[in-house]
């Protein structure tokens, strides 16, 4: 009797659990399904109310048009290059800083680590105006003025501002990454380094050849998060390089551009005054958004299992 009741309650619970998991998954995936459906839907299906999700007439025109509006392939190549470089620089500088804070005690090391936490807590908008003016006439300690007599160089709309902030561990959420690395290195046994020291390896050699190869899981965490956040970032990219071809900026201005360009691409003159059907423009915009997030989704399919595993092992918790 008892066992039977136990079994039914287990079954009920597992049904309840599946209902919940499937429901929440649906809420998350629904906008994505909708975009995929729109991307392959033909124009003549827009006003057909009997269609739900699966279009009657398939077409690749939307994708072609959206790619044309966005200038997709060069844009993607450029974005990936930029994001990869900044991600690697961020990972490097944060790993160095994290190791420095975890293993060495020097005067003021605790105070400095508190300052790392402070960089996480202060909203980036506070630093926006001074950073903008700083990179508008960039001059490291007056050196450029000293040698050339000019008032610094304008680094806006180049990749340098982001590179410099990434290389000095001051980029997007870098404080968090330093924290992750520090927690991980703190948890590693000290004996490894002592052995390396006795065998004659210097500090940097120990770090590069022994500590870093063992720190794969926090490295993966940091690289994944840094890549994704950099890819999606509009704040820094709009501030420093509003005119550069980056996907995140392009997507934000996509609706306006689609409105302007679609009549031209469909064969009407630029001054003909013909406006595209707003429903059709919305379709192209949705397709464009899908194209913009597609690289991230494809990347995610390959690395998603590391996402959970690496967080568990990187010692954020410990």
């Amino acid at each position, binding site marked *: 009797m008892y066992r039977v009741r136990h079994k039914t309650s287990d079954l009920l619970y597992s049904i309840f659990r599946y209902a919940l998991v499937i429901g929440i998954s649906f809420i*998350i995936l629904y906008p994505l399904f909708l975009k995929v459906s729109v991307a392959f839907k033909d124009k003549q299906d827009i006003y057909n109310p009997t269609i739900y999700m699966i279009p009657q007439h398939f077409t690749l025109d939307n994708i072609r048009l959206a790619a044309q509006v966005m200038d997709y392939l060069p844009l993607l190549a450029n974005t990936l290059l930029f994001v990869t470089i900044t991600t690697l620089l961020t990972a490097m500088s944060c790993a160095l800083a994290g190791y420095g804070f975890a293993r060495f005690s020097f005067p003021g090391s605790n105070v400095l680590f508190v300052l790392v936490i402070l960089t996480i807590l202060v*909203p980036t908008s506070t630093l926006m105006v*001074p950073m903008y003016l700083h990179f508008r006439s960039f001059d490291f300690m007056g050196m450029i003025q000293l040698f050339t007599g000019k008032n610094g160089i304008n680094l806006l709309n180049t990749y340098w501002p982001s590179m410099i*902030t990434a290389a000095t*561990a001051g980029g997007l959420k870098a404080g968090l990454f330093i924290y992750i690395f520090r927690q991980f290195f703190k948890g590693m046994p000290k004996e490894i380094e002592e052995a390396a020291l006795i065998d004659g390896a210097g500090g940097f050699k120990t770090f590069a050849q022994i500590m870093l190869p063992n720190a794969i899981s926090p490295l993966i965490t940091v690289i994944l998060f840094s890549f994704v956040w950099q890819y999606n970032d509009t704040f820094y990219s709009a501030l420093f390089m509003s005119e550069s071809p980056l996907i995140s900026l392009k*997507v*934000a201005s996509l*609706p306006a551009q689609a409105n302007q360009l679609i009549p031209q691409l469909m064969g009407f003159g630029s001054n003909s005054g013909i406006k595209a059907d707003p429903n059709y423009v919305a379709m192209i915009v949705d397709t464009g958004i899908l194209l913009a997030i597609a690289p991230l989704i494809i990347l995610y399919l390959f690395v998603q299992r590391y*996402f959970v595993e690496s967080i568990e092992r990187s010692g954020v918790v410990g």
Partner: protein
Amino acid sequence: MRTIRLSLKSRRALLGLAFISPWLLGFIFLFATPLLQSIRFSLSNLSVAPGGYVLDFVGFKNFKDALLFDATYNRILVDSVGAMLLNVPMILFFSLFTATLLNQKFRGRTMARAIFFLPVILASSAVAAAESAGLINLMGDASAVDASADGGASFNVVSIVRMLADVGLPMAYVDYIVEAIMRIYEIISSSGVQILIFLAALQSVPGSMYEVAKIEGATAYESFWKITFPMVSPLILTNVIYTIIDSFAGSPVTQAIYQTAFKTQNFGLSSAMSWLYTLVIGLVLIVVGWVLSRRVHYN
């Protein structure tokens, strides 16, 4: 030339400084200096000159302007802090609940996890902007979007409100629950990282504790409140702080600050606005941290 012989301790200290030197340089020149400059800007009237800028000291005028004369700033500030205070408990509750769910063993768990963390990847303000702009394009103007969002949601909300009121819940709770339901997508999509952190915390709880509790006859409910909850409580503090910080990254206040600086070119006012925002956030963080850290269980 005399070589200076350093003790091992001071050599290690120098080595440590060498490791953090990239960060330290960045901190001094790209964080501390701008931070101090930002205070100066907020007290001055800044005008851009060729190759630099000119500052006129005006005292607290910018702060006064932001709070008393700017048409929308104080309303936006109160709104977004209010929304944040409303969202934080919901996100925390949802992410702890989901993490417990995903920590159990069932078929398809890997896939469920993969789907639940998808919002971390896709949470992009650019995409959100383009989507709402696309909708505006479709509807004609922004007010139509507001109206349609309300209209679309209201039909099922009424029945929920009636049902909850019939059960006898106080209206304040009913309001909160309804609010939570209306924001479910927002909450789900902004709790990805929090779920990850809770999940990691749950897996670090030793399994032997649950075995002991089971042998002693504790129910699942009891072992959740007596074992799981205290063990993950330090991470609740972490998650609260993360959620608060995350919420001001794309908040309307940040937008307003950006607009003031780069559309109307009023850099002084913009700095004052951002400092007011920083102070409010700091205050919230201190209060929340102080209240929570007294209840956290450290092992």
